[in-house]
């Protein structure tokens, strides 16, 4: 049995949210810089250049890439042989979020209750926490700062088996085209296919936080990812939605076993400020 202190979790979570709020991943930066060379729209190229310059300013000055520093989502994989000492596991994560947003000049965007009062919690908590117990004695933390311009453009549909591959593609393309400029393209598209209603949505969220050079291990789903990326970019939405061929940087598909009667599909859209960071304790 290996032990870690709850305070170590708090520190790690705070560091991860600060890091991803200030510094975009090398994969996204490279994809934007590559797109500047290939984007046919002059306005689109100018938009991509601003996005690239913005990454540089944010990283150098240690300021937020985007003022919407998001709702905090944490995926935790807890080794079953790991003992967490001197604190509550979930509260340790919430405290990490609190410290990052209060001390890091990040915007506090969370309201305690969604419908009647919508009162701001003033420290960006609570974070959404997804925990899995896994073999081993380590703790893997993935921090995702999810902006709501793109979250609001996401969608889930319970397709039926007869809808098939074409139905899945149609739903994804419609979701991206209807979103147009709103989710701050170029976007990263996370797709969850199968499972249940909530499983599809969680998979889609996980898809938005994968490295851009990652592809589905199943060659059929990898092909579908590649086909969808090409078709999304052929929609013409372009950088900032003002027209062009750089609408998405990547489509990530995750799939899961599902019911004989169902074909759930969730599409979680993430803006070009695809902020996530991970650490193993």
């Amino acid at each position, binding site marked *: 049995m290996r032990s870690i202190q709850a305070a170590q979790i708090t520190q790690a979570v705070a560091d991860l949210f600060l890091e991803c709020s200030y510094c975009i991943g090398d994969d996204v930066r490279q994809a934007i810089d590559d797109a500047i060379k290939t984007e046919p729209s002059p306005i689109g190229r100018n938009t991509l250049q601003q996005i690239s310059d913005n990454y540089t300013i944010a990283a150098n000055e240690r300021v937020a890439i*985007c003022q919407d520093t998001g709702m905090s989502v944490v995926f935790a994989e807890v080794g079953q042989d790991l003992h967490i000492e001197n604190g509550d596991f979930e509260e340790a994560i919430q405290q990490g979020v609190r410290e990052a947003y209060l001390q890091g000049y990040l915007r506090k965007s969370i309201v305690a209750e969604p419908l009647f009062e919508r009162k701001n919690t003033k420290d960006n908590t609570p974070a959404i926490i997804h925990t899995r117990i896994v073999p081993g004695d380590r703790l893997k933390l993935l921090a995702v700062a999810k902006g709501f*311009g793109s979250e609001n453009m996401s969608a889930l549909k319970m397709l039926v088996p007869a809808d098939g591959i074409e139905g899945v593609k149609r739903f994804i393309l419609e979701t991206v085209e209807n979103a147009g400029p709103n989710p701050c393209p170029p976007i990263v598209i996370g797709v969850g296919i199968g499972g249940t209603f909530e499983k599809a949505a969680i998979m889609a969220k996980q898809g938005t936080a994968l490295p851009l050079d990652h592809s589905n291990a199943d060659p059929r789903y990898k092909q579908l990812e590649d086909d969808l990326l090409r078709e999304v970019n052929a929609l013409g939405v372009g950088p900032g939605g003002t*027209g062009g061929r750089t609408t998405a940087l990547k489509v990530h598909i995750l799939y899961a076993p599902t019911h004989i009667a169902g074909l759930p599909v969730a599409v979680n859209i993430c803006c070009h400020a695809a902020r996530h960071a991970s650490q193993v304790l």
Partner: protein
Amino acid sequence: MSTIHLTLPLDEKTVRSLRAGDAVTLSGAIYTGRDAAHKRLIELIDRGEPLPIPLEGETIYYVGPAPASPGHAVGSAGPTTSYRMDPYTPKLLARGLRGMIGKGLRGPGVVDAMKQYGAVYFGAVGGAAALIARSIQESTVIAYPDLGAEAIHRFVINEFPAIVVIDSLGNNLYETGPKLYKEAGL
């Protein structure tokens, strides 16, 4: 792309000369406002009470800035998605609002009012929030401090980068731009 350098506040003649797709910079004073501030402004208008900000010739920026770190006038401050303000916007345009800065689609009610009263919708690059903040030289809370980031701020801006997305004739770059680049058959 050539750039038109605009000074705020805007007059109707200048606004009506702008066309969708024009690259512009904006310099002068603007006011910030998001969902909650808009709701309060409209409640005042509906009750016939005075507003905390002038509207005639003015420009509203849809933004909720991040907190300013030491040495900065404002934290990162990119545009938020504009459609959430659509239910409130026509009443502000009727009272002289000339410019709006945001990102994303606008509804037909807003576009009709823009044509009627002579107003322009500027798009700023969503997510380019640290870059945009460099053009904001001063930030003062004018109304609703209880709203935090959603309070109405007065920004003094210099060469704020934007694009005319919807002009006073109703031309819309979000419609015409993607049509140019959409592959046939889709």
